[in-house]
């Protein structure tokens, strides 16, 4: 952050120590030093700004802002002040103030290239495209450098991209940009590649593909050199847009044979696409001249078949380093010919045979499964067994040992065998086995796994074991068995196996991910924390795989871990906005124009992330559940999180699902794999759940505002930070919540099972079945009626009172029902086996959440009823009436408070007894019947059980503690 003056100015020397203090994070000393300096040099404005930076960084935002404005109104023109203010405003997240600053500076020093350039960048930071365009031109007029001119052009393109009205883009902004570039072209002033790129971008966006092609192929195109094959790629794209299939075909043909990368899959695809377009158009070569601008064109099936054969012959002639492309392209061509019912497909060979040949060549590569998987549907179902047997013949295995399993002698053979096993699973053969068959398969896979470990003895800790995938697949078969039979022993053994696998291959992310998922499904979050942290997931990964953590932490009652996992994600998202803006500016500086819209889209994708909205909401709810009315009053908590019930900050219509739903490996057959419907449905479920949670949160905000109406303040900040809730918003939020709840009920009725390694089910179904949603809605409805009672008073509100009394009664019943659904053993022991029942834990958490909300609402009810009661008593005293009946609402409330007391006692007792019985449970004594485990394996299984056990205890402890704290707040309900 050092000031870089061109000439050594005495002020620079004076300011130096302050800069140093700030750079070293010693903000207090920086402030002191600035004060000292300001005593001597009152007009050293920069010192003031530096002091403001110190204040800002020590949390004194208001003071910092006032001080900064003292300098800003003077419209400084010295570098030091301007730079310091820029830094300060950025840290304050007020980039718009930087624009004001430099607007003033260029007004005062209209010829400064530097200030104009800063002004341009300041506009760029806030996306003021029109002003950028003008600033760019102003800059170019002062200093006629090309980049400035093209900044201005790019700003026009950005106006086009951001314009709501597409017509305006097409008829005004883009044509203007085009003319601006054309002017430079005519004057032969084009200098840089970036300028040609921008010209290309403009023409492309205008749909002027012919013109774009001329540019790429003409002299200007010669400047496109940075990227490899830049011109070819651009031409190809344009040929497709222009549907010039002959050129497209000829060029893809050429690119597949000649150039830099003779194995590029995209050109095969383009070759086939163009080929069939040409066939459909009955394309004929022109009477004279070249077949196409790009050379020879293939426009018949026969030509394509012979092209493929040539490509393969070339490969076959090679001694080594065979390319996979031609072989796979042949299969692709068969697929396409078959889709068109072309009998010529047969000329290329029988897919089974071709895939076999591919396997012989490439079966020892780990990607062989990925390659062949996409062509498995070329086989007919009755060929499957034959196919697998055929491949197996090509796997060199040693003679079967005692256990009847034939094993590979080296890693290549292992990889081949593994590939066949993977293909067999992909063909559904493993799923078709009965229980016994699956257990047998597991035994075999384990034998391969154990045997294969010998090949990896010298592997480093960072490397994977050669046979890891056998272990993973055996785990998948265990999961299949568990899903089919519901036998929890399968799950225990699966966990044991994976724990063992991880102990042999500590960097295997797939082991970790599956373990993590299984522990979560078992309701055990404690082991998940370490597993996730060992994945070393960072930054953007918090968005793509963070859901694995945040979905479960809170719902399993591990509140501390839940806060932490939300924080990981939130920290990432919050830095995004500031970070991306800086690189948009960089992209202007380096002329990476095509990256600018990309960066903006990226920023939006992160800002609109579903996961971001989820963690934001859940984090606030969690804070309230854990703290509000415990460590500080609800009102304080709500205020500190700037929660505004009237404001909905979630971009519902543009939410982006950034989850990586395929991060876990799967070799399941196609019909069991993740599909679009799953993704769609999962997004829908998660969005609905988010809506429920966000509405609940806002309603809690309303309740808080009702209990402590905010003092009216005049400062403009009130609306920003203070809580303002009008009764109307309460009403409207309630009806939205009710609607959403109905939608949610309807959605969960339509059951859809996700693949086990696909998206995790949202919390919706469990929450609904626990009864918590309905209960929370009922409790949040109370304030509305109480408000009414507050206005009508006790005397003329019999009907209303009855209504309220009934609500209290119903609420007590609902809570009791919820509590009943929590009862049962978390680890149920039956016939010497232990069966986890994690849903009990989840229900317990929902119960506690509901209790929190009910208590806040009751607190408000108490605050309404208390004055009513005391005024009643005063009246009584006056009239000296002997005894009147207590108004029904008061007795109902009192009854309700005491039933809450008893409910909480019951719940605490239940938790206590669960803790006791879990502690007493001797896992060692449990048998793992009907299993195939060795002693060593059993140890790992026991470890896994211990982890689940310990996690349950911890969850119970955290839930119990929270409930106890809540129970302590009961006394404040007294009226």
């Amino acid at each position, binding site marked *: 952050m050092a000031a870089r003056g061109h000439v050594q100015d005495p002020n620079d020397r004076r300011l130096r120590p302050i800069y140093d203090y700030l750079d070293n994070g010693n903000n207090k000393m920086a402030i002191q030093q600035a004060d000292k300096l300001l005593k001597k040099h009152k007009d050293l404005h920069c010192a003031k700004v530096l002091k403001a930076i110190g204040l800002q960084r020590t949390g004194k935002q208001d003071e910092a802002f006032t001080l900064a404005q003292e300098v800003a109104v003077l419209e400084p023109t010295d570098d030091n002040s301007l730079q310091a203010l820029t830094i300060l405003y950025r840290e304050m997240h007020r980039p718009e103030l930087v624009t004001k600053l430099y607007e003033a500076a260029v007004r005062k020093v209209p010829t400064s290239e530097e200030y104009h350039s800063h002004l341009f960048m300041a506009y760029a930071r806030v996306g003021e495209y029109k002003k950028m365009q003008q600033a760019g031109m102003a800059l170019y007029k002062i200093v006629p450098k090309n980049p400035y001119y093209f900044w201005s052009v790019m700003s026009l393109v950005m106006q086009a991209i951001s314009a709501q009205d597409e017509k305006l883009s097409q008829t005004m902004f883009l044509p203007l940009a085009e003319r601006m570039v054309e002017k430079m072209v005519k004057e032969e002033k084009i200098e840089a590649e970036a300028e040609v790129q921008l010209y290309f971008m403009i023409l492309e966006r205008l749909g002027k593909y012919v013109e774009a092609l001329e540019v790429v192929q003409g002299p200007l195109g010669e400047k496109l050199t940075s990227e490899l094959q830049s011109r070819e790629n651009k031409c190809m794209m344009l040929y497709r847009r222009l549907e010039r299939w002959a050129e497209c075909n000829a060029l893809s043909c050429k690119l597949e044979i000649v150039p830099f990368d003779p194995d590029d899959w995209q050109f095969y695809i383009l070759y086939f696409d163009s080929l069939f377009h040409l066939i459909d158009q009955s394309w004929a070569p022109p009477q004279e001249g070249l077949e196409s601008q790009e050379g020879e064109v293939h426009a018949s099936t026969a030509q394509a078949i012979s092209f493929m054969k040539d490509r393969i012959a070339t490969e076959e002639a090679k001694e080594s380093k065979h390319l996979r492309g031609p072989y796979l392209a042949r299969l692709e061509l068969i697929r396409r010919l078959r889709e068109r019912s072309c009998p010529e497909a047969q000329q290329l060979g029988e897919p089974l045979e071709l895939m076999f040949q591919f396997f012989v060549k490439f079966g020892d590569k780990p*990607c062989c499964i990925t390659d062949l998987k996409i062509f498995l549907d070329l086989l007919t179902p009755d060929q499957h067994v034959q196919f697998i047997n055929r491949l197996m013949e090509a796997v060199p295995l040693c003679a079967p040992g005692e256990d009847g399993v034939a094993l590979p002698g080296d890693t290549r053979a292992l990889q081949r065998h593994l590939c066949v096993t993977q293909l067999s699973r992909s063909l559904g053969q493993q799923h078709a086995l009965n229980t016994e068959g699956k257990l047998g398969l597991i035994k075999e896979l384990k034998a391969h796994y154990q045997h294969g470990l010998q090949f990896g003895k010298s592997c480093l800790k960072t490397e994977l074991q050669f046979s890891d995938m056998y272990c993973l697949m055996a785990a998948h078969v265990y999961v299949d068995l568990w899903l089919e039979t519901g036998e929890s022993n399968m799950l225990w053994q699966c966990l044991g196996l994976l724990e063992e696998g991880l102990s042999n291959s500590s960097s295997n992310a797939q082991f970790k991910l599956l373990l993590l998922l299984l522990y979560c499904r078992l309701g055990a979050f404690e082991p998940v924390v370490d597993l996730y942290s060992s994945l070393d997931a960072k930054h953007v990964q918090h968005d793509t795989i963070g859901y694995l953590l945040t979905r479960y932490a809170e719902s399993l009652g591990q509140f501390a871990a839940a806060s932490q996992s939300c924080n990981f994600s939130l920290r990432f998202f919050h830095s995004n906005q500031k970070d991306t803006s800086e*690189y948009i500016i960089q992209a202007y500086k380096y002329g*990476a124009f095509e990256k600018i819209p990309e960066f903006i889209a990226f920023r939006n994708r992160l800002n609109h992330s579903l996961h971001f909205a989820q963690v934001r909401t859940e984090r606030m709810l969690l804070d309230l559940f854990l703290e509000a009315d415990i460590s500080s009053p609800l009102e304080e908590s709500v205020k500190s999180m700037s929660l505004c019930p009237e404001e909905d900050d979630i971009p519902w219509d543009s939410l982006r699902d950034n989850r990586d739903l395929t991060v876990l490996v799967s070799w399941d057959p196609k019909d069991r794999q993740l599909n679009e419907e799953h993704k769609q449905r999962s997004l829908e479920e998660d969005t609905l759940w988010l809506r429920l949670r966000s509405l609940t949160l806002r309603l809690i905000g309303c309740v808080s505002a009702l209990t402590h109406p905010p003092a009216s303040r005049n400062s403009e900040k009130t609306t920003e930070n203070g809580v303002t809730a009008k009764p109307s918003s309460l009403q409207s939020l309630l009806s939205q919540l009710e609607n959403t709840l109905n939608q949610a009920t309807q959605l969960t009725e339509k059951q859809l099972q996700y693949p086990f390694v696909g998206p995790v089910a949202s919390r919706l179904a469990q929450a609904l079945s626990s009864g918590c949603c309905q209960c929370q809605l009922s409790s949040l409805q109370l304030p509305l009626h109480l408000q009414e009672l507050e206005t009508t008073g006790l005397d003329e509100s019999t009907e209303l009172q009855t209504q309220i009394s009934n609500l209290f009664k119903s609420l007590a019943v609902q809570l009791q029902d919820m509590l009943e659904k929590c009862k049962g053993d978390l680890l149920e022991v039956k016939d010497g086996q232990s069966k986890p029942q994690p849903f009990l834990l989840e229900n317990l958490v929902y119960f506690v959440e509901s209790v929190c909300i009910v208590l806040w609402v009751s607190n408000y009810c108490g605050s309404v009823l208390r004055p009513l009661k005391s005024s009643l008593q005063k009246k009584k005293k006056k009239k000296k009436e002997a005894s009147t009946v207590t108004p029904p609402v008061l007795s109902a409330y009192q009854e309700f408070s005491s039933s809450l007391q008893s409910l909480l006692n019951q719940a605490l007792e239940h938790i206590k007894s669960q803790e006791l019985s879990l502690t007493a449970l001797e896992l060692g004594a449990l048998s793992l019947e009907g299993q195939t485990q060795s002693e060593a394996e059993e140890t790992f299984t026991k470890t896994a059980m211990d982890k689940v056990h310990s996690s349950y205890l911890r969850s119970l402890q955290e839930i119990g503690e929270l409930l106890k704290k809540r129970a302590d707040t009961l006394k404040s309900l007294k009226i």
Partner: protein
Amino acid sequence: MTTLRAFTCDDLFKFNNINLDPLTETYGIPFYLQYLAHWPEYFIVAEAPGGELMGYIMGKAEGSVAREEWHGHVTALSVAPEFRRLGLAAKLMEMLEEISERKGGFFVDLFVRVSNQVAVNMYKQLGYSVYRTVIEYYSANNGEPDEDAYDMRKALSRDTEKKSIIPLPHPVRPEDIE
């Protein structure tokens, strides 16, 4: 049998199968954006026919031309486990070298953990040699000692006498490298 194309921001959402490797660092967003803004041509990703990302290379051009230090630098190179042993890393390196050639670089260099024998051997096979050792270049966060790096180089055609790759006799400290 791969589609090679420019890496874009959207790929950051899909690269877990590559980046969950223990030796592949997932950087903060600014780091990736800096490379995309400054050297987009040096950031290339390989995509499988099924759409899976196979691997990527990320690099830059830097150094003074006058001092004959203008060169291509490999910042990150990683291939997902299932797409290894296909020569993909070599292919991506070849592309980076070609881009550096076009920019008139004198050499290409990279840093690698001395313990990462697999990678060191691969680079040697691709024609790279150890130019110097950088002491404690990789900082460890789990209490283990910091690790040294090899600075490996390969001369490009502009460095006709291969002056740029003559090994330094002594190791250097991280603060001594540019």
